């Protein structure tokens, strides 16, 4: 994403209520996730009372008697970092695949996109689970890689579609007639014109990443079983859903709000792109 695209998008924010709302929600949750650990009334592994009671701060305690509110505040950082990195990875790999396919055209395009379709046929989470069950204690980078690569084929389809509409335009032909290198044609002529739709795709992919990373946590493939993590918290506390619902509801609500925020943001950008960004 170039800085210019971001800047021009920011200028239009005032006239884009959907995008503005999404952006504000996303930023608020992100800020909570980042500075949360310092605001938490208790430590993330501090026992403040009996399990599943309303002791501790306002949201009560979890299965070990740790403070739910403190763990919510502390548990966003990892999910945020993992999903943002995974999204970035997926976007980069996907864009490269898609743009190369679109610009190359012909049989290379066919070959790349058919392989891509094969990758697409796998349900996203399945591939991740396959690998994660094989390892004992997954490292954070592993989750980033798995989620990232599972996004790539989806991003590639979108990127190729957008790029196809651009590589056939005369300014690209003009650059080719001048004898510009292929790399420069892609970087200087094609990519800058893909900003808006790709930004929208990134927002959407971030939504999915959050869901997937939380899902992986929920299924118990946590990098650090003791640490606070929104996905993992749902798993830890689900037994007492009827007794102390906050242990589950609190992380569910933040994840929900976060995904709604990123999705609104993606929608807003897509709307903006639909109207053309000059």
């Amino acid at each position: 994403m170039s800085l210019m695209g971001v800047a021009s998008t920011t200028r239009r924010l005032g006239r884009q209520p959907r995008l503005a709302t999404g952006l504000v929600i996303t930023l608020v949750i992100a800020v909570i996730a980042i500075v949360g650990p310092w605001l938490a009334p208790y430590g993330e592994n501090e026992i403040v009372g009996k399990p599943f009671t309303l002791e501790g701060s306002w949201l009560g305690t979890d299965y070990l008697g740790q403070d739910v509110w403190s763990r919510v505040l502390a548990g966003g950082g990892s999910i945020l970092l993992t999903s943002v990195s995974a999204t970035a990875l997926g976007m980069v790999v996907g864009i490269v695949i898609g743009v190369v396919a679109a610009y190359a055209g012909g049989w290379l395009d066919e070959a790349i996109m058919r392989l891509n379709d094969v990758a697409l046929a796998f349900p996203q989470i399945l591939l991740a689970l396959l690998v994660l069950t094989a390892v004992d204690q997954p490292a954070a980078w592993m989750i980033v890689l798995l989620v990232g690569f599972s996004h790539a084929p989806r991003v590639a389809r979108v990127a190729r579609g957008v790029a196809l509409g651009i590589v056939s335009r005369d300014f690209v032909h003009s650059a080719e007639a001048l004898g510009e290198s292929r790399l420069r044609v892609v970087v200087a002529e094609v990519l800058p014109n893909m900003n808006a739709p790709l930004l929208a795709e990134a927002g959407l992919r971030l939504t999915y990443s959050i869901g997937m990373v939380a899902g992986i946590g929920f299924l118990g493939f946590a990098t650090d079983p003791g640490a606070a993590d929104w996905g993992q918290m749902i798993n830890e506390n689900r037994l007492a859903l009827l007794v102390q619902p906050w242990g589950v509801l609190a992380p569910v609500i933040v994840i929900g709000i976060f995904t709604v925020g990123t999705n609104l943001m993606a929608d807003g950008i897509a709307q903006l792109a639909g109207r053309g960004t000059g």
Partner: protein
Amino acid sequence: MTTVAGAGCTLTDLRVALTGSDVDVVDEIDIELRPGEVVGLVGESGSGKTTAGTALLGYARHGAVIERGSLVFEGQDVLAMSWEQVRPIRGMKIAYVPQDPGAALNPAIRIGRQIVELLELHGIGTAEERLAGARAGLREVGLPDDDEFLARYPHQLSGGQVQRVALAMAFLPRPKVLVLDEPTTGLDVTTQGMVLRTMAELCRSYQVAALYVTHDLAVVANIADRVAVMYAGRIIELGPREVMFSQPAHPYTRALLDAIPHLARARALTGIPGSTPGPGRRPSGCRFHDRCEYVQDRCRETEPRDVRVGQDHTAKCVRVGEIGSWDINRGNVADTDPHKERDIILTVEDLHVSYGRTEVVHGVDFDVARAEVVALVGESGSGKTTISRCIGGLHGEWTGAVTFDGRALGKGARARSVEERKRIQYIFQNPYLSLNPRLTIAQIVARPMELFGIARGRAARDKVVELLEAVALGPTVLDLRTDRLSGGERQRVAIARALAAEPDLLVCDEITSALDVSVQGSIVALLEDLRKTRGISMLFVTHNLALVRSIAARVQVLSAGELVESGFVVEVLDSPRHEYTRQLIGNSPTVA
């Protein structure tokens, strides 16, 4: 103005403004349409001609509103009617033919069904009568009326056929008034000629009062009885066709006529400086004053009223009668001398071009000399653009020999040497697509210099300023992106980019066809100047024969991928040998 009750219609003091502002799109439009008469409404883009045209249907596009005015039709004011009252009149009594009829026909319904449906909607006749009516309508516009044709879908018709179906549908309910909005734009001259003749015949035989909205003066010169010229939302001159084309009174009309090429003689075309101001940016006083060569102080202050010039002829100019008479021959220049020595720079021999397995150009030979303009002329599908793309290195599927300055040219741009890529520059038809919207003008124009090592950094920027000056653009545009420029300005940037490489051959693919005539005039003048001062050769691809006369020395006429005639412009146009060339010349609309 006088109106016979029940005949034609009279539009008086029409004002259409942008919703919620006092910015007018068109204002003070007075025009009378008489039965059996075609009035040509001519204007450049942004003049408000389409807005004025659709106002005759009591309609203003989204974002605009009819603020004032009356349209007296059959004794009633259509503009004062409610939506429910206007509806039965639209299409029935006042019909409309859109610019792109392909978009107006439903692609999923057969032609016959669509026509019958129209009659059903208006509750005309029984089922059999409607079908018979549909057949009769198609016959009238010269289309087949058999079941096979009625069963076709719109995509199975050619552009001209679709346009004639639209005409048939417009005429079927026997309207009294017909508004045609550039109905032949995008059609080849032969097809356009047919559509225009059909339209004119139908208007006369059914005594329809027609308003023909167009940007093309040449078309109007062939079909209109009276001509109204619009500029910046006003009708600035209105008069009978013969008078308008021989004794135009308004400086704008004169400038427009100076900008259009003639088939019969070569002219030094001139453009009008600046561009047509859009709504909200129009100057006070006479709206043309900032571009007018006869401007005086009073033009800036007072808005001119209609001045009667002659019978049925008015002009909105305070200086009518003071600015002398206009002579159609003013811009004439001599045709290029066929006996001049030619120093050949580009030779094309036995060129065959294909797209996949289809061969579209079958063995074409021609050459281009130094500082010479050679035109490639043909209708759509003739292969003229394909040939130019091969020479420009944009299409590689060809066989034959293309020799540039003594060396055989490689097929695609990547198969050519840096030197060859630098010396041959290609300019595209549509300046809205050929410039990267993400880059600034300075970046776009400087790039070929950086790439070919001509200049970089500060020096490149200085050269960009020089080049922009050469194409009549100021340094203020340097750091703008292209979306801030008009079509003509964009095309100038594209030309500047081509010049930045210091080329010897410019391949120009229909570079003026997306532009207004006044802009075309100035681009042609610019190219002529570049040819003379820099000795640049040009391969000029166009469908406009009249333009060829004014710009080129030699012409190659193409039909279906084959060269049917070639030679010096003066010889080919004055004494065409091939039947196709004769037909093309015969169908080309021309003002004189």
